């Protein structure tokens, strides 16, 4: 059943995206609804998995930690630990839980920092960070590779946020797109460098802690 929910949500998202492309005047509505649909597909995918109580509380706790970190860093524009934590969760726990941690962290932190039309996009972008890190797991074993990936994810995150705002509410010209991207550069550079520092300083420790808990959650019973 849940897999059907996933495909329905994904189909809705695709058709909304097509609508956005064909009717640029309604771009704002179409892409917003498409973002909601993709996020819904992600959650349906989550519901479909065999989520044990242990996975659920672990995901919620990581998302809560990321959200709290974001709230803590709120005074520093652009810099926050969410991307690194989400990418770390993706690598340690796999794409499904990585997505969940990212999406939930975005939603939860915005209850303290302010909900807005950016919420579904942040859920999508951070969920995507966790998903991507989870899929690229074998490549991200090393400390440097992981740090480089978080830098790339930082810029990708910024690009997603700038592009949707442009498509929804700015004139559909190259000039406007460039202006939007340029306006985002300071934040994105701050975000990416924050990621780099955090990933280098705390990355290995984060991985160690997460993998320990993941191992513990796969309890082994020896029946004698």
């Amino acid at each position: 059943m849940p897999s059907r929910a996933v495909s329905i949500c994904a189909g809705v998202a695709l058709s909304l995206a097509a609508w956005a492309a064909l009717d640029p005047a309604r771009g704002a509505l179409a892409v917003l609804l498409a973002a909601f649909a993709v996020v819904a597909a992600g959650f349906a995918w989550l519901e479909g998995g065999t989520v044990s109580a242990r996975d659920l509380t672990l995901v919620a706790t990581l998302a809560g930690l990321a959200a709290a970190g974001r709230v803590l860093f709120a005074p520093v524009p652009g810099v926050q630990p969410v991307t690194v934590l989400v990418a770390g969760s993706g690598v340690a726990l796999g794409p499904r839980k990585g997505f969940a941690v990212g999406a939930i962290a975005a939603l939860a932190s915005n209850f303290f920092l302010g909900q807005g039309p950016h919420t579904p996009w942040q859920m999508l972008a951070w969920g995507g960070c966790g998903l991507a890190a989870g899929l690229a797991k074998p490549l991200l074993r090393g400390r440097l590779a992981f740090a480089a990936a978080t830098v790339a994810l930082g810029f990708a995150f910024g690009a997603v946020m700038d592009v949707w705002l442009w498509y929804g509410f700015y004139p559909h010209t190259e000039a406007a797109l460039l202006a939007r991207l340029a306006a985002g550069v300071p934040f994105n550079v701050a975000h990416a460098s924050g990621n780099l520092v955090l990933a280098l300083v705390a990355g290995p420790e984060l991985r160690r802690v997460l993998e320990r808990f993941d191992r513990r959650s796969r309890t082994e019973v020896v029946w004698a």
Partner: protein
Amino acid sequence: MALAELHEVEFAYPGAERTLGPVSLALEPGEIVALLGPSGSGKSTLLRAFSGLVPHFHGGRFAGRAVVAGLDTRTSRPASLAGTVASVFQDPEDQVVMTIVANEVAFGLENLGTPPAEIWPRVERALADVDALHLWGRKTVELSGGELQRVCLASALALEPQLLLLDEPTSQLDPDAATLFLAAVARLGATVVLSEQRAGRVLELATRVLFVEHGRVLLDAPTAEARGWLAAHRPRWTDASVDSTQTSTRPGATVLRLRGVSHRYLPAVPLLDGVELELRRGEIVALEGPNGSGKTTLARISAGLLAPQAGTIERVGRAGYLSQDPGRYVVRETALAEVALAVGGHERRSQAALEAFGLGHAANRHPRDLSSGERERLGVAAVAVAEPDLLVLDEPTRGLDPDRKAELAAWLRAYADAGRAVLLVTHDRDLPADRRIGLCVESTQAPLGVPVAV
């Protein structure tokens, strides 16, 4: 036929020596079993074996079989046993799922597929059984320790299980609430296994007594017979009153003086109101009062960790404070390092402090892998090691067995006699003190929040 049966059960936590067993026993329907034993003897582990959480949730090595209402825990997961078995764990702080009290009590009922129309009435009945109906719409994070414990107990009672496993269920309840709860347990008609450190109250109720030591059952007998055995072999378990033959030396200079201290969290709900309190060197003072009367609040104010909204505090020297849930605030990775934190890493003093509280063997263990009682003692050691002039302990007897409690009492006496003051927050009348001060709540005759001598 037996409702629950352990057959030659042996268990070891992952990477540890055998903690439990071999244990064989059978529980008949309707029995109320008191589970007694020293701290760290395996009581909680034995209870987890009945609910299947050992070994399914914790992992480790398991031998023998546990069968509950015809379901073998080898094949049935804890969640599928949940309708038949209900557990209340030792630490209420770590088992709350929902944000609102009523939803918390309904959580288990919803999981088990209870018909919707029955849910709220059962929630209501369960909360009434622990005198907590007034907490219905409260947020769970804002409750006092005892209030939270009542909510956890209600969550288990609401499930109306055939087998109810209670791990030190009254450790933070005031005496009235404890009596009320035990009466509700007796009414339930289910098989109950109840682990307790303060045996007196429970022996009134229990039909059968188990005494566990080092993971084995030393005694399994009807209550009357068990009383005799306990009196002969473990006298402290039947008569827990610690003899305070050593009278205190004459109280010395004042360490703490509170004048007109008032504090409340919600403007509409009065709490502390004009509290006067004085503590002198050489004194042990116990602070009592019903759940939610503001004892923890007053203790934190006394230790200088919370500024009251009105009133003055004078304190001489340093203060040390042990919170009501010390297991929650573990800073270091080994017990030794945890204690050493307060003395700048001084190993010999730390080791001595661990020994003083019977934790010498656990110096290199992770604090999280200790039993609850061991963790409580670790908390006391970590605070006491720095020898503050004023030692404030919030419910220090939580999880302490009678022998440990006697040791703690003696240690506290010596500590005070060395010219320091101790403020104890406790429901435990067995812990001797020079003075007892009671906090009252609105409904009682004495004015609110004003200490009365007891």
